[in-house]
């Protein structure tokens, strides 16, 4: 397609082209807990061009397992995790907007996290990494945005944990954003969500290797806790409908890459369902690309997120919000269901804020904002909403 043409919707195609992750270094940050964490590095990518007025920046906020590589193709040939949404002519149009995505604080993809070296010990933080919050992650993002010379973002856009961050931006940095798109998120994680995260962390804690290497960051041993945690996560991200359609009760002899799959030495069962094969694959891939201590730190931050608790009630939390807000939920999402988006909407309405609420009737569960089949809808909504937000100069 030609540059500048509007794409109705896109699958991930790496259209933006080659991108490189950049790094910004800071002295450090005082966490909400009072702990000073430094030095601080933030991994980020940008797509598109910042306008002369510096008013066309859109910050993308990734979910639990995401990273700074949101669009285009990296040096390993990998497409960005939201490449279907971000690119020339796509929902978040890089011909129009300067798009930024950074790896969150506590992550393992270049931003300071448990794998980083603790200057006091000269060793990786590992499990001694301080407890962080969604607010800390957002404060780090705000430092990056300022570092890039941007005073006010056109929008912040995020799903799941990214949606929590988008809400946090609206609440704690009201003058730094003109709009926010909050997708499949909640103002406080449900006990059900906390429970799933707790089981996931427990799987990691059960790894004998890691118990012995606390505070260090050794190469991963035989422990499979992280893989189990990921499998649990994946179950919660999918809907019954998706599982039925994608796997049914079919038996699998091949993995997602078409290779014959075997449970190897752990394999005690002779027969395998496709859903098992899928989860096994997801778990194994995650083992290679993620860090278990990051998983612990980030899920804990998600668990602790509770705007109601911090401000007394949601209305108070939203009293200073000035951004236009779009709250999006998915009818089939049972991890962050519509009932959890509605209190956010109600409180914003009560405060007479500019809020739109859309419940999309998509069958793909919590992951609806990441699957290609959801893209036609999300593309139109995000493009339309961003288009309706006016820069301060024309207000």
């Amino acid at each position: 397609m030609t540059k500048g043409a509007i794409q109705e919707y896109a699958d991930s195609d790496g259209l933006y082209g080659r991108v490189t992750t950049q790094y910004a270094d800071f002295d450090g940050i005082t966490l909400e807990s009072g702990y000073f964490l430094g030095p601080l590095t933030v991994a980020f990518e940008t797509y598109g061009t910042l306008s002369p007025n510096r008013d066309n920046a859109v910050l993308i906020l990734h979910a639990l397992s995401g990273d700074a590589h949101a669009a285009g193709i990296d040096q390993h040939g990998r497409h960005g995790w939201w490449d279907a949404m971000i690119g020339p002519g796509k929902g978040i149009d890089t011909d129009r907007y300067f798009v930024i995505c950074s790896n969150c604080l506590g992550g393992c993809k270049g931003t300071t996290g448990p794998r980083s070296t603790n200057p006091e010990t000269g060793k990786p933080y590992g499990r001694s990494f301080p407890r962080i919050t969604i607010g800390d992650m957002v404060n780090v993002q705000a430092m990056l945005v300022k570092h890039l010379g941007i005073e006010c973002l056109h929008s912040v856009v995020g799903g799941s944990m990214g949606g929590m961050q988008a809400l946090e931006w609206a609440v704690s940095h009201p003058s730094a954003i003109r709009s926010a798109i909050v997708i499949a998120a909640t103002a406080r994680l449900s006990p059900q969500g906390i429970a799933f995260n707790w089981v996931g962390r427990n799987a990691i804690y059960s790894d004998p290797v890691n118990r012995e290497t606390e505070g260090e960051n050794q190469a991963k041993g035989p422990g499979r806790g992280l893989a189990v945690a990921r499998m649990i996560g994946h179950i919660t991200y999918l809907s019954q409908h998706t599982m039925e359609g994608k796997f049914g009760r079919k038996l699998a002899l091949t993995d997602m890459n078409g290779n014959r799959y075997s449970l190897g030495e752990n394999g005690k069962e002779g027969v395998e369902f496709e859903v098992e094969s899928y989860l096994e694959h997801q778990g194994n891939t995650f083992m290679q690309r993620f860090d278990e201590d990051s998983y612990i730190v980030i899920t804990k931050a998600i668990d602790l997120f509770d705007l109601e608790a911090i401000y007394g009630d949601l209305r108070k939390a939203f009293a200073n919000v000035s951004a236009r807000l779009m709250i999006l939920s998915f009818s089939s999402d049972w991890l962050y269901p519509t009932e959890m988006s509605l209190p956010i909407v109600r409180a914003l309405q009560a405060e007479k804020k500019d809020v739109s609420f859309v419940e999309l009737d998509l069958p793909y569960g919590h992951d609806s904002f990441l699957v290609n089949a959801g893209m036609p809808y999300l593309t139109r909504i995000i493009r339309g909403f961003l288009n309706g937000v006016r820069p301060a100069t024309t207000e």
Partner: protein
Amino acid sequence: MYAQQQPNKTPFHEFQVGFNIIADLITPGTRVLDLGCGSGTLLQKLRDEKDVEGCGVELDQEKVIRCIERGIRIMTLDLDEGLGGFPDLSYEYVVLSRTLQQLMNPERVVREMLRVGSKSIITFPNFGHWKMALRYLITGRTPVSETHPHPWYNTPDIHRLTISDFRIFIRKLGGKIEKEIFIIKSSGVSDAFWANRRAEWGCFLISAA
């Protein structure tokens, strides 16, 4: 889809007459909540022509997305579940255009409108039109007409009310009728002889008494 979709011949169906009449009732620069706003045609018109700060409520997904594409604030809500999230008197006008006859619980919704809006504008097809009554009398069957284009067994218009019904209904709710406009042969008049029998549509401006 509804069976026997007839071409909507009445200009009211084509928005212009109906929307112009509604728009004329609205003071520029006010806040307007449009219940069952469809794809946002009225709100866009009000925004562009009257500098209105609008918000729509709609359940149909495609229409909701169309509203967003038009830059219109929108809520995906089922009207029959009320307007719980909207504070008292938070809008100057609440509009319910061509939707009253489709609600499961019109009483609840209109009570909510009176609570949320300083004024409310409601339009509905008038089942009291003489042609309708005549057809009913002669054929003994539920009439199908331009204002009620669907057969009884497959229609969104689950209530068949008349202008007289509506007046009594508003009185019962303790509301006040500020203005009545009758659409007779596709043009709006505010004073008409035998309106309940001659109007195709009724348009009422009401407020909490």
